[in-house]
């Protein structure tokens, strides 16, 4: 099953192609991490899938061509957790999450009992019950991110797009949010496409990574295949060491080659990581 199929997708701003002839398939029920340096076209690609930017080429969702879907149909297929959500400061959490039911409410209609039940279940699931009445301005960054996720889930769309969902969070809250998304992906069969800057986190959570550079897809596959020192150096212009953790995951560690005379990652031998990494690099 293919959730999102992209063929020869191009998104242009005047002469500049933000997404350039990109072809890829996102399998249903998987978590695909969208990685690439700033300006690679990750956000433009997500916006094209959401129908917010015009594109050429073909995007189809669950086998249906993008062009055949109305705005409302599209919002029942794909939900977005934006990078910097616009949060009306005085709006209560419950009202904000209820906005996610908009795709199911007629143009001039209001929420039905069913809409409220769906939202109540999501609020319960994400453990937001104790602050449904609080205005958004009083929430912390981590709470707010869960509330925004709840609104996206209220759309009950099979595909969830996340644009840098954790860039404003500390390491603990990053993990909490991503674990939550991971559970939704595994347990509810959601297809997740997440644009992420933290390559280690992207490698830890995604089933596959799609590496974009200059609007093109340059690599797609399991994290261990995509995240190599060579590709990261080539496309990010970054000096990194790629290590393996004990579970077979990939750890991307930035290095400072030109200071203190050493490219040492600081990982000592007794972790066993550095050895494995050197072995990996050699092999």
């Amino acid at each position: 099953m293919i959730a999102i199929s992209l063929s020869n997708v191009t998104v242009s701003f005047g002469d500049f192609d933000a997404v350039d002839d990109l072809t890829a398939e996102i399998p249903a029920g998987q978590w695909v991490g969208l990685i690439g340096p700033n300006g690679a076209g990750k956000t433009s690609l997500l916006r094209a899938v959401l129908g917010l930017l015009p594109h050429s080429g073909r995007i189809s969702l669950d086998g249906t061509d993008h062009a055949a879907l109305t705005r409302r149909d599209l919002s029942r297929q794909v939900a977005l957790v934006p990078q910097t959500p616009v949060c009306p400061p005085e709006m209560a959490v419950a009202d904000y999450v209820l906005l996610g039911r908009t795709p199911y409410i007629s143009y001039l209609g209001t929420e039905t009992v069913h809409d409220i039940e769906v939202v109540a279940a999501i609020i319960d699931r994400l453990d937001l019950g104790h602050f449904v009445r609080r205005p958004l301005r009083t929430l912390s960054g981590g709470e707010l991110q869960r509330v925004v996720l709840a609104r996206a889930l209220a759309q009950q769309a099979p595909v969830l797009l996340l644009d840098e969902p954790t860039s404003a969070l500390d390491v603990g809250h990053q993990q909490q949010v991503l674990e939550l998304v991971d559970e939704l992906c595994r347990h509810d069969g959601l297809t997740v496409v997440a644009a992420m800057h933290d390559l280690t986190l992207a490698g830890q959570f995604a089933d596959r990574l799609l590496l974009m550079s200059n609007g093109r897809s340059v690599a797609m596959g399991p994290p261990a295949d995509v995240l190599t020192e060579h590709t990261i150096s080539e496309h990010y212009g970054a000096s990194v060491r790629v290590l393996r953790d004990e579970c077979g995951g990939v750890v991307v560690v930035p290095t400072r080659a030109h200071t203190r005379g050493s490219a040492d990652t600081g990982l000592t031998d007794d972790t066993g990581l550095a050895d494995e990494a050197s072995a990996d690099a050699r092999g």
Partner: protein
Amino acid sequence: MSEQPTRVTVEAIVRADAPARPAPARLRRRWLAAGVASLASAMVVAIAFGPAGLPVGGVISELVSALPGIEVGDGLSDRQAGILWQIRLPRIVLGALVGGMLAMSGAAYQGVFRNPLADPYLLGVAAGAGLGATLAIAYGPNSTTWAVDALPLFAFAGAFIGVALAWAVGHTAGASRNVATLILAGVAVAAFLTAIQTFVQQRESDTLRTVYGWILGRLSTSGWHEVLLILPYVTISAVVVLLHRRLLDVLSVGDDEAGTLGIRTTRVRLVVVAAATLGTAAAVAVSGLIGFVGIIVPHAVRLVAGTSYRIVLPLSLLLGAAFLVLADVAARSIASPAELPIGVITAFFGAPFFAVVLRTNRRLVQ
């Protein structure tokens, strides 16, 4: 021994498990009642005040008798009844219609433009209506030769043409992607129309006083003529805008996110702006440019009752009506028998009132 703690624990668990019901924001009955009560009391005060004193008991029995099937006898002399029905009431009803319309349109504009400083005159309504009114005063047909008064028609048409121009210019410049473009187009159109208006006004300087009087705003009526003239437009406008109250809440998360929620934002904006403009143009046509109501009333409502458009729109309609009815009482009684321009009154009393609301709610504003 062990039973009591167990029972408490089970209760606690049951309570914690009960799903929190997320109730959507809505206009609470007590706020609606307060709004209706304010409008009713403002109207009673307005009926009581005036150069010719009317006995309150007589007014009440006169009004009750007007209801079909009820007869409680004449409380007023024929002359007093004439003052009530042909002079005082039409003016009060007109004030309520204009005030409610300006306040609700202001709230609607603030919603579609996500800008707290937006008022119903934002997109060239004022400049267009001003030009229309000036043309009517300077070159329009003499009111004795025309069956209808040309001024409201010209002002109405000018207001609508002003907004249509701003919309057209804005959307050829990409306003569907950025709302600020539309606002800037409105600024350009308003400046252009005001330039023409000023030119005409200078050329025909004998009209200066009339034009200036119109710009400052006034409620003057000849019987029920003006009320009937604007009633259909105000009704359509109010119904359409109120029906969009939930969509204005959706728009508050911005065009992009509202788009991902399935809303065609440009269409919603067009419909709401068109409806609000229809009502504003009608109001401006009979009352001139009464400033301030469209900004102050919706913000006072937000500070006191809540920021959802399900609350702000209906309450602005009611309280805007009450506010302008009271402002008109002040306008015709302070320098009686002369009348002050009502636009001066709305700002003079409205600004300190708003400052007080702002201060008493300073914890709400951050």
